[in-house]
């Protein structure tokens, strides 16, 4: 027997098909198709967790996605463990392990329950007041304690072994929700010829028909009609039916996120299947058929395990065949809960009483209750619920006072009416309007191309829902361009029309400030907390929400928002619309990180860019560093060398012999056209029309605000052709910056820009022997100083392949940069290496490149500048043309603050102790003993050990730096203060003779 509370003949599950699972170590039997909740209830278990703040015993409140209480830790194996799973949504599979959360040492005896006794100290907003003093105690004591005591599940520690899929889909009509409304609308749209996607969060379609009885559509039982309709739809070529699929987010321009749970219900994992599939749907029209959510009643101790929504009680009985108790009371303000009593009574379960706080319930349900012999107490309220780990009794009193009568129950079904699910409508940024007559928010003004139908639109009557849905399906299909097809008509009947509903606190919540009448179960917010918030001066619902945390748990107030709002409105003496409704945000229900991250993990998290020489570098044992997406050779350690030794050797070797450096990542832009020089005149501070073909120039690029944006060497190949280089990291934005000005400010110029970064491999050969190394390999270019001096460029051949050869240097040595088509990169590199290695040259990486350029005071834009430095600040004013009448930044750099005295300027720093290497980013002060906070003059931007100088060197920005040459400044560190002397920026070969070697 799959549980003692299973009623023979009730429900839609197959009794023979069982599944075994454990709950807190106890093995239980379920039926296939059970949720964890229905399986626990079948086994007589109501107590499933402890509450967030007070650690109160909690049970299962609902049978759906709105569940605030029954959050459990569910695992398949050690790595597949998920906390905070809603028991009402998770289907049971054979072998599943389920653990309760937030309790110690056990669920039935929880030490944290002590909090409940201390609750007078834990009123709403107590965090803001209680833990104010002493200040230091917050980090040391209060926060760690609160974090340990509060919270629900524990995050898994192992990496997620599952994979997730992602799919884009386009359709004419997306229907979210497959109850009567959604199915009817999808059918009408599909028959009209539209491409339709229909999704529902449940394993089966049917929506409210899951708990309903006595509903017929076109003469069929409602549930059977729903399943048959889904089969009809699924068989159509133009329809996709997705179950276990939640429409969780409605974004701009009818872009809707769906998440499909593919394997979480399967006993055996199929490795080929993704755990979940994220659907990103762009729909021409969206139909929202999200239904409505039943609200609980707000009264004293309404959180006792065994107290649940009436519709949940019906679901467990009519769908899962489970009676939620043997003596089930009903407390309601709405006719719908009567049907729960009828169903239970007919199934043989005792129903001691229906307590209705209204004086005049619907006549039909009242008559039926009498016919079934159920006592109905109209004009009464439940003023308290007894029992600790499970409800044992209710105290019922006539409204307005009087003595209470105690009724023994072991479960209580409650309903205060239904809240239309306007979540997705609100996410679409439509505006809701309050319907005063039915006391509910309904879709008002639409902003996107969608339609709400059925219960989420406030349509209560079955036939009205069907008619509305069919009309919406056909209308949206036609509007999306569907032609032809057939029209659908359906006829629906149900047992009772429903009336009633209330929001806010019932009489049983009392005016008292000590009564715990919960409105938000997951965050332990009571009616009194809302009143307290109002007394403390909160006026707006947004403030009340944040003060009390009402509706801020992972269920996002699906049950509590309306109650909280009504209580606040009453306390404020305002109408509900004046108090306002908080905004619904995506996602509707929690979505796993796995579904969102999807394939973008591990190697696929971010693309890796590799240069044409990468394989060679790897084979040489290079260490790599990430520069943007690039993998760059950092240094080439020999056996026994650490980074420091390797870099010191490489630095020495380059200056004594030569070195090869892979500069392929440099950004490269081909600028071509009759107006190319004029365009570059505008983009860079330098003058380009005076540059002769065959020559190069170092250029500075500013933004229009006058700050340095990028730099690089530009070679002129012909009158109308330039080879522009940018920083490695700046390549894409420089290209965008150039395109922007070319397309929108200077469109009259005849210039074309092409990114060639990945088309050229760049091999820098630097050092005294650079010429000797490459000379025998080069054809058609005279490499002598006279014919090819520093800052020259020529086209020719190297190793028989075309090259653009630059004579330039980022090391201060005689140097060449060999550009060859990327496909030849490694072959040419190897040919050069074959000559270089026997001469004693080395390959060097980015770290050595950094040190060598710092020895020469060459800046790196983005390291030595940070977007707030002008060309003059960076000691580059020589590169700014005084003659030009326009270039980008010409006006910005004249702004008063940019020409002010005392700006931070780039200078060199030499530590008094030459062996001390400063930390990059360290702050610089004039007086080390001044009181804190000290006046900071600037910071270290680059700092290295220089083997060539035999000491440490550094670059720094310092206020008024160039006027401080020779001054002693200080760098205060945590453990000591380092004295430094301000110097110029060139540390090696100050005359620069080596460039021309």
């Amino acid at each position, binding site marked *: 027997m799959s549980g003692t509370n299973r009623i023979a003949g009730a429900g839609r599950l197959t009794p023979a098909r069982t599944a075994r699972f454990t709950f807190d170590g106890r093995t239980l039997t379920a039926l296939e198709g059970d949720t964890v909740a229905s399986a626990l209830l079948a086994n007589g278990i109501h107590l499933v967790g402890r509450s967030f703040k007070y650690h109160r015993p909690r049970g299962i409140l609902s049978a759906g996605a709105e569940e605030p209480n029954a959050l459990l830790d569910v695992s398949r194996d050690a790595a597949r463990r998920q906390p905070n799973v809603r028991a009402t949504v998770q289907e049971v599979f054979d072998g599943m392990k389920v653990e309760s959360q937030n309790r110690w040492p056990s669920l039935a005896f929880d030490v944290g329950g002590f909090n409940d006794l201390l609750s007078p100290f834990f009123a709403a907003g107590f965090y803001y007041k209680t833990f104010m003093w002493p200040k230091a105690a917050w980090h040391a004591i209060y926060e760690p304690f609160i974090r340990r005591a509060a919270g629900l599940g524990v995050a898994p520690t192992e990496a997620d072994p599952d994979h997730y899929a992602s799919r884009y889909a386009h359709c004419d009509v997306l229907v979210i929700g497959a109850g009567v409304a959604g199915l009817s609308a999808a059918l009408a749209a599909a028959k009209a010829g539209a491409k339709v996607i229909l999704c529902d969060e449940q394993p089966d379609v049917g929506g409210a028909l899951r708990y309903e009885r006595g509903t017929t559509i076109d003469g069929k039982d409602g549930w059977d009609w729903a399943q048959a309709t889904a089969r009809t739809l699924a068989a159509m070529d133009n329809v996709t039916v997705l179950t276990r699929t939640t429409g969780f987010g409605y974004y701009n321009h009818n872009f809707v996120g769906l998440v499909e749970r593919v394997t979480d219900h399967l006993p055996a994992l199929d490795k080929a299947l993704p755990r979940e599939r994220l659907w990103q749907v762009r729909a021409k029209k969206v139909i929202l058929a999200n239904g409505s959510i039943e609200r609980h009643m707000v009264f004293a101790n309404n959180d006792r395990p065994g107290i649940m929504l009436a519709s949940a009680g019906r679901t467990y009985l009519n769908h899962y065949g489970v009676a939620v108790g043997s003596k089930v009371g009903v407390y309601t303000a709405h006719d719908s809960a009567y049907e729960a009593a009828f169903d239970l009574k007919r199934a043989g379960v005792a129903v001691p009483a229906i307590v209705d706080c209204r004086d005049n319930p619907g006549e039909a349900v009242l008559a039926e209750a009498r016919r079934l012999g159920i006592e109905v107490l109209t004009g009464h309220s439940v003023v308290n619920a007894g029992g600790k780990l499970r409800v044992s009794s209710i105290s019922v009193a006539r409204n307005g006072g009087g003595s209470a009568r105690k009724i023994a129950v072991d479960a209580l079904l409650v309903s205060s009416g239904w809240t239309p699910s306007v979540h997705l409508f609100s996410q679409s940024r439509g505006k809701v309007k309050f319907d005063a007559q039915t006391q509910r928010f309904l879709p008002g003004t639409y902003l996107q191309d969608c339609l709400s139908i059925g219960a989420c639109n406030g349509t209560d009557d079955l036939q009205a829902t069907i008619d509305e849905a069919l009309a919406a399906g056909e209308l949206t299909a036609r509007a999306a361009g569907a032609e032809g097809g057939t029209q659908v008509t359906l006829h629906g009947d149900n047992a009772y029309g429903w009336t009633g509903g209330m929001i806010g606190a019932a009489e049983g919540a009392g005016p008292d400030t000590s009564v715990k009448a919960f409105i938000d179960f997951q965050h332990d917010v009571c009616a009194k907390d809302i009143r307290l918030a109002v007394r403390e001066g909160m006026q707006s619902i947004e403030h009340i929400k944040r003060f009390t945390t009402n509706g801020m748990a992972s269920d996002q107030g699906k049950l509590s928002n309306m109650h909280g709002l009504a209580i606040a409105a009453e306390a404020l003496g305002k109408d509900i619309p004046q108090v306002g409704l908080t905004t619904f945000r995506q996602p509707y229900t929690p979505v796993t990180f796995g579904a969102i991250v999807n394939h973008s993990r591990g190697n696929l998290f971010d693309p890796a860019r590799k240069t044409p020489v990468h394989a060679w570098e790897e084979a040489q044992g290079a260490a790599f560093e990430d520069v943007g997406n690039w993998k760059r050779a950092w240094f080439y350690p020999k056996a026994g060398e650490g980074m420091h030794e390797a870099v010191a050797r490489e630095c020495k070797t380059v200056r004594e012999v030569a070195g090869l450096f892979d500069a392929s990542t440099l950004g490269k832009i081909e600028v071509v056209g009759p107006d190319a020089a004029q365009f570059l005149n505008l983009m860079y501070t330098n003058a380009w029309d005076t540059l002769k073909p065959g020559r190069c120039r170092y250029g500075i690029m500013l933004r229009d605000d006058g700050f340095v944006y990028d730099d690089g060497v530009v070679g002129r190949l012909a009158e109308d052709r330039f080879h522009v280089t940018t920083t490695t990291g700046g390549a894409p934005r420089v290209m965008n910056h150039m395109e*922007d000005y070319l397309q929108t400010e200077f469109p009259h110029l005849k210039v074309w820009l092409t990114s060639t970064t990945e088309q050229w491999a760049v091999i820098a050969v630097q050092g005294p022997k650079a010429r000797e190394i490459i000379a025998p390999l080069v054809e058609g270019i005279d490499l002598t100083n006279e014919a090819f001096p520093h800052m020259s460029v020529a086209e020719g051949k190297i190793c028989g392949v075309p090259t653009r050869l630059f004579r330039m240097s980022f090391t201060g040595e005689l140097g060449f940069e060999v550009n060859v088509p990327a496909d030849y990169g490694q072959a040419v590199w190897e040919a050069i290496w074959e000559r270089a290695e026997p001469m004693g040259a080395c390959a060097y990486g980015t770290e050595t490149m950094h040190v060598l350029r710092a020895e020469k005071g060459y800046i790196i834009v983005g390291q030595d500048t940070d977007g707030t430095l002008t060309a003059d600040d960076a000691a580059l004013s020589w590169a700014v043309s005084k003659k030009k*009448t326009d270039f980008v930044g*010409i*006006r910005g750099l004249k702004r008063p603050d940019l020409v002010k005295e005392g700006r931070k300027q780039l200078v060199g720093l030499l530590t008094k102790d030459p062996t001390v290497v400063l930390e990059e980013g360290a702050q610089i002060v004039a007086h080390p003993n001044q009181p804190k906070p000290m006046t900071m003059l600037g910071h270290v931007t680059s700092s290295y050990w220089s083997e060539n100088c035999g000491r440490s060197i550094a670059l720094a920005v310092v206020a008024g730096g160039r006027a401080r040459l020779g001054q002693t400044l200080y760098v205060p560190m945590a453990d000591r203060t380092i004295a430094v002397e301000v110097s110029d920026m060139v540390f090696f070969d100050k005359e620069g003779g080596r460039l021309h070697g």
Partner: protein
Amino acid sequence: MLLIYCPYCEEERSELEFRGAGDAHIARPDNIADITDEEFEEYFFLRQNPKGLIFERWRHIHGCGRFFNAARDTVSDRFYTTYKAGEPKPDVAAILNGERDKGAAR
């Protein structure tokens, strides 16, 4: 995610292919070197950030690469129109009236 009509490709494409580029119809002064500090402030720094209709620039960066202009409602994110760079600014009243007419027809 927005759906944006590229006036060069003449197609509606996903926002993923585009990059926003700030306010439209802010011309860089021809005599920029000679303008006053106040004029430069106006040109470079000050923006209206309107609630409602905005004219803004987009680049179809992962498509044709062209910059173009759009009239968008910052509240609803609805695009009233997109048009090529260099084309005149559409008439605001006409745009809003057109919307009203469409609204009435629905």
